[in-house]
């Protein structure tokens, strides 16, 4: 428990130092790419309340997102997990690349997403939900030894209309270390700022500083058994607050919709953006 609280305090400390603005989604991706040369550091945290007396878990996720060009963004994720009366473990890392194939803004903006994951079975972050799901009471300590290499692809479709953002993600995931077939999943999201006009004053609680919406995400089985049977699905209201010029808090209580879902996934996050990180690094190493 002391480890659990230590990690929680560390994440809160990191969060307090952070500043940036973000979309309110936790699982769904929209067409936003990181600006060229910027590094965004985020902390996202998930508390899982389970059913049938299974232990509560906490899963922190650190994100480092860099914009190489206007059409290419990369991201590194480091994740951990801690379970009540169990263990605290580092569960692995993910490397992701997103590509924007079309220049400009369109009615539907496609983004191509590719990810490599090296994570253990103890992973609890639920960064995406794919395939089948089962509620487990296995110890994180035991699951930590079961490592997996996975490849993941997403087709992200995103639209902006009349202040609303509507995004759809279609997910494929292949575990390279187990013969599970290809797993499928989806994530849908919609949000809107509470005001479409920006006020002229420097206010923290202006309506335009809040974005509210909803996410729906879940698994769709695999090539071995496609469909909704034994899958987990979540409906999650999302809220983001741009607390300052560049700082954003976000929170999302996700409700499990099926027998195989956790009861709730409570998420909260914070983001810090280092603007011009690429050029600062270049200067540091003697570039112009």
């Amino acid at each position, binding site marked *: 428990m002391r480890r659990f609280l230590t990690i929680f305090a560390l994440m809160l400390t990191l969060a307090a130092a952070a500043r940036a603005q973000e979309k309110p989604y936790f699982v769904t991706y929209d067409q936003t790419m990181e600006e060229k040369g910027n590094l965004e550091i985020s902390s996202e945290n998930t508390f899982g309340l389970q059913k049938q007396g299974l232990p509560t878990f906490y899963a922190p996720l650190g994100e480092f997102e860099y914009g190489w060009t206007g*059409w290419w963004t990369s991201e590194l994720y480091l994740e951990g997990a801690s379970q009540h009366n169990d263990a605290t473990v580092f569960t692995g890392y993910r490397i992701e690349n997103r590509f924007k194939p079309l220049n400009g803004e369109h009615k539907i903006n496609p983004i191509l997403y590719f990810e490599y994951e*090296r994570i253990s079975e103890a992973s609890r972050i639920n960064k995406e939900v794919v395939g089948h799901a089962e509620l487990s009471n296995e110890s994180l300590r035991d699951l930590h030894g079961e490592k997996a290499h996975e490849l993941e692809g997403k087709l992200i479709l995103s639209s902006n209309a009349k202040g609303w953002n509507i995004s759809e993600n279609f997910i494929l995931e292949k575990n390279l270390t187990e013969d599970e077939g290809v797993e499928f999943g989806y994530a849908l999201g919609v949000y809107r700022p509470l005001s479409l*006009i920006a006020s*002229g004053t420097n206010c923290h609680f202006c309506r335009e500083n809040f974005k509210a919406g909803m996410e729906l995400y879940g698994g769709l089985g695999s090539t071995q058994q496609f469909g909704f049977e034994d899958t987990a699905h979540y409906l999650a209201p999302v809220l983001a607050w741009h607390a300052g010029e560049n700082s954003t808090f976000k929170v999302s209580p996700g409700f499990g919709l099926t027998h195989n879902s956790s009861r709730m996934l409570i998420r909260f996050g914070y983001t810090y953006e280092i603007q011009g990180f690429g050029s600062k690094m270049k200067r540091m190493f003697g570039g112009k």
Partner: protein
Amino acid sequence: MRRFSCLPLLLALAATSVAAQPLSPQGTDPSWVAPEKDAARKNPLASKPELAAGGQKVFSRTCANCHGDEAHRATTKAPDLASDAVQAQSDGAIFWKITNGNTRKAMPSWGSIPEPQRWQLVLYLRSLRDTK
């Protein structure tokens, strides 16, 4: 398990090799022109100049990183927005450029900013003519 052990290293090398290449140079893009129909659009907030203050706030949040806090000074990343070349463009053309961006020149598309706020940005950019 061993056969995949070099995959992360290969990915890291690939990323590093691309990162080592020079990023695309900044500058004007003569092909980046708003279509006539979009260039002809009028700013629906033109009669409310007081909303330019909100546009300045949006600017400092989303644009100042490249265009500078003052906006009327060229930076190494982006042009002077109070320059004649920019101010000679119609409201509709500036709005179209904010909305669509130009990823070839690292100008992001800002379609995620609500439309009224993008028009507020245009109002603010127009106010730079007086401060030049």
